[in-house]
């Protein structure tokens, strides 16, 4: 049996992001990509499950960036057994979560995994829709905000984090789709030598897919955040400070 992990690349925000002249996209030439942080946790959780049960881990991704290989090889170097890359004509568009799920669902069904693990959310999927959408398309049980898993006969026991630190333990029939919030351990370090070894010795399976017809809302404008968070320390006697506060409020038309 296998555990499928979905990996997605997102722009690296350590690098400065710029908006393309079109105004509806990032300047892709200056963007570099990293694996969505939560997906890293999904992979780590899958690897931990593998260590406990001996399942094979298959990483799956849609290559929207042209650079997915790096992420897949890294996953192989960390201990995944197979890597599947979905390729198609996606250049110049961000796939919506719904479109992504649509592409992934048939491929995953084919893999017939015991579990599908993905990050609970991503910078372009802040409401964490990937796991539920996939679950719906596959008609498998699903849940999100998972912080721990354990496989048993025909079920997976998961621990979810609720508000205020309250934990919820659930049992889902497998196959199931899980949105991982945090793996039980920090995602492991993979030495560069191992990644290079994987690049030499393993192959990435490719699956050609049709570009989905989007029914998602159309993007009209992308904007950089306004410079914010300017703080000013007010000093002096209490009456000076009060005076200054009034001035500020007045300047902003609040008083």
């Amino acid at each position, binding site marked *: 049996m296998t555990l499928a992990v979905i990996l997605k690349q997102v722009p690296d925000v350590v*690098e400065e992001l710029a908006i393309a002249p079109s105004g509806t996209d990032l300047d892709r030439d200056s963007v570099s990509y*990293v694996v969505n942080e939560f997906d890293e946790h999904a992979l780590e959780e899958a690897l931990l499950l593998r260590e406990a049960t001996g399942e094979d881990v298959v990483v799956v991704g849609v290559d929207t960036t042209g650079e997915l290989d790096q992420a897949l090889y890294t996953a192989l170097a960390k201990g995944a057994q197979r890597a599947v890359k979905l390729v198609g004509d996606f250049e110049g568009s961000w796939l919506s979560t719904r479109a992504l799920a649509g592409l992934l669902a048939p491929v995953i069904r084919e893999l017939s995994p015991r579990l599908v693990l993905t990050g609970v959310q991503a910078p372009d999927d802040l409401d964490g829709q990937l796991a539920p959408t996939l679950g719906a398309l596959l008609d498998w049980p699903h849940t999100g905000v998972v912080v721990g898993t354990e496989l048993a006969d025909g079920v997976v026991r998961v621990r979810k984090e609720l508000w205020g630190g309250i934990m919820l333990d659930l049992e889902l029939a497998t196959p199931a789709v899980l949105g991982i919030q945090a793996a039980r351990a*920090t995602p*492991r*370090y*993979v*030495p*560069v*030598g191992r*990644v290079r070894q994987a690049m030499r010795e393993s192959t990435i399976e490719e699956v050609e897919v049709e570009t989905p017809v989007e029914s998602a809302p159309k993007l009209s404008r992308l904007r950089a955040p306004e410079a914010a968070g300017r703080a000013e320390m007010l000093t002096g006697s209490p009456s000076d400070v009060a005076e200054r506060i009034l001035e500020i409020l007045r300047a902003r038309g609040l008083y």
Partner: protein
Amino acid sequence: MLTTPERIAFLLLALASLLLTLRGVRLIVRAIGRGYGRPSWGVFLRRVIPVSLDILLQRPIFRTRPLVSLLHAGVFFAFVFYGLVNVLDLLEGFNGYSTLHASGVASAYNLVADLLSVAALLGMLGLLLRRFGLRPFRFNRAVFLLPSVRFGISRDSAIVGGFILLHVGSRWAGQAVRIAESGRPDWSQPTASLLAALLGGLDAATLAVASHVTWWLALGLILAFLPYFPYSKHIHLFMAPLNLILREEKPLGRLEPPVGNGQVGAARLEELRWYQILDAYACIMCNRCQDVCPAHGTGRALSPAALEINKRYYLNRNLNSFAGGTASPPLLETATSRAAVWSCTTCGACVRICPVGNRPMLDLIDLRRHLVFAGDEIDPNLQTALESLSRYGNSFGKSARQRARWAKDLPFPVKDARKEPVEYLWFVGDFASFDPRMQENTKTVAQLFHQAGLDFGILYEDEWNSGNDVRRVGEEGLFELLVEHNLAALGKARFRAIVTTDPHSYNALRNEYSALGLDVPVYHYTELLAELLERGQLQPSKRLQAVATYHDPCYLGRYNRITAAPRRVIRALGLELREMPRHGENTYCCGAGGGQIWMDSGGQERPSEQRIREAIALGEDVRYFVVACPKDMAMYSDAVKTTGYEHRLTVIDVARLVAWATGLIELEREAAPVSQS
């Protein structure tokens, strides 16, 4: 003269003893041969004479502990001479040849033998007294020791010491007996004659028996001891010179790449190189390496001595099976612990001090290589640093584009060496580029270069971490990645020489990169500053009247012997330099090297704090703790605060002092020295 049965017995015993010894030696050779690689005979031929001379002069031993070294020298010279003495004594036993009451050369021989016997006895007594009385063997509680080691070290020392005492003592007493038998003192053997005077009262029969007994105790004892010899630390007698002679003349700052064939680093004894196994046999268990180890000195689990001693005792106990080719248990179960492996700062002090040429540090790096490659859990901070290094080329998690941001604040542009040729390519280094506390220094260095009219440029975002510490953390693949990147970037630039601010980068570029294809001179900025001052390109307008001490960075002072240049700068500014006890090549580590700067040291007193105390002990009037390494600046600025000496001692980069003297910058009030224009 021996009786015939005695002679036969001696010959038979000698044969048995030699066969047993030979067996042991052969096993040892085979054990060492299980390591990777083979010694080079070219190296042997080239080094055998100069190194033997060094050994005869006892140079490697006198690096530290003068008194103990003197005792050792006494024992050593006696031992060398005793080779001859034993042969002559053998002759005496078998055909009655004797130098007693002889004259000429033989009397000179007698005199030397007589005096050396006493020297050896006293030397040995002194060494034993020290080991068992004054300074018994101690390790930090956290240090991993094989159970056999705890008791074994004392036992081995006692046996070897006892053997030497009994062997030399019996020979000496034997001479006295023979002098007593002759009835008159032999003036060429004064001390034995003195003893003979005490024996004067004994009758002839007793003396005859005593003569036989002492002969057997002196020479027969060797036969009894020989088979034990390969298992004792006495074997350093052969292994230490061999180790010293066969050591390739490579800089300490150039590590060997992993052995290849899929194996990265070493998990087991047989995965080490041959000389790392030889180290265990050369080790004399003196603990000198432990004394200078900053990790052990701050209570951590690492003792380089314990590592070698454990290896040795493991081998002693399992020599048969190990030499026979059986896989040995992991080194982490027999030689050292994870905690120890990760506390090494790769300061190289153990390597420098070891009198027998051991390099325990290399084992630790090989173990790290293994652990990292095998996916063993590593310190989370280290992991973050490595991930950042492989992604952005720096350990700060910052975009490479921000590397040269500091240069924007300068009143002049810094040349881009990728776009125009420069004389000096300045390899700035991570800390100097990214650490906000260090950027001021970096700007100062740039201003000084500018002021001196130096033609220099930088690589901007194409400079990546040199990988010096990455390699020493054991992440060999990442090291290769960084080297590839930097070599490509350097290939795009045109320059005559490289100058670095960071001693770690300096070491990598000079020693590691040169082995991988880089062929240009590399300078440390202190070398350049010294020259610019001496050539008058930098002109101090003020003299600094203060007392300063200077901390040699391990990778500058010890690894690359750049100790004069920074001192030339300090003196050129008019400062009075007062040295800490540990300076130059014997400097003490700041605790940041070998990747420690990225790891959590675990809350004990840090080496940097001990170092500040060392400086404080130099006297009230020491104002400056001068550093020449961005990491030192970070470590010691912290340490001077945590030790509470912030107001007494100012930690300052040598470049800042120069810049102050040339009028480039002002120093904060409390940092400014008393000056005269």
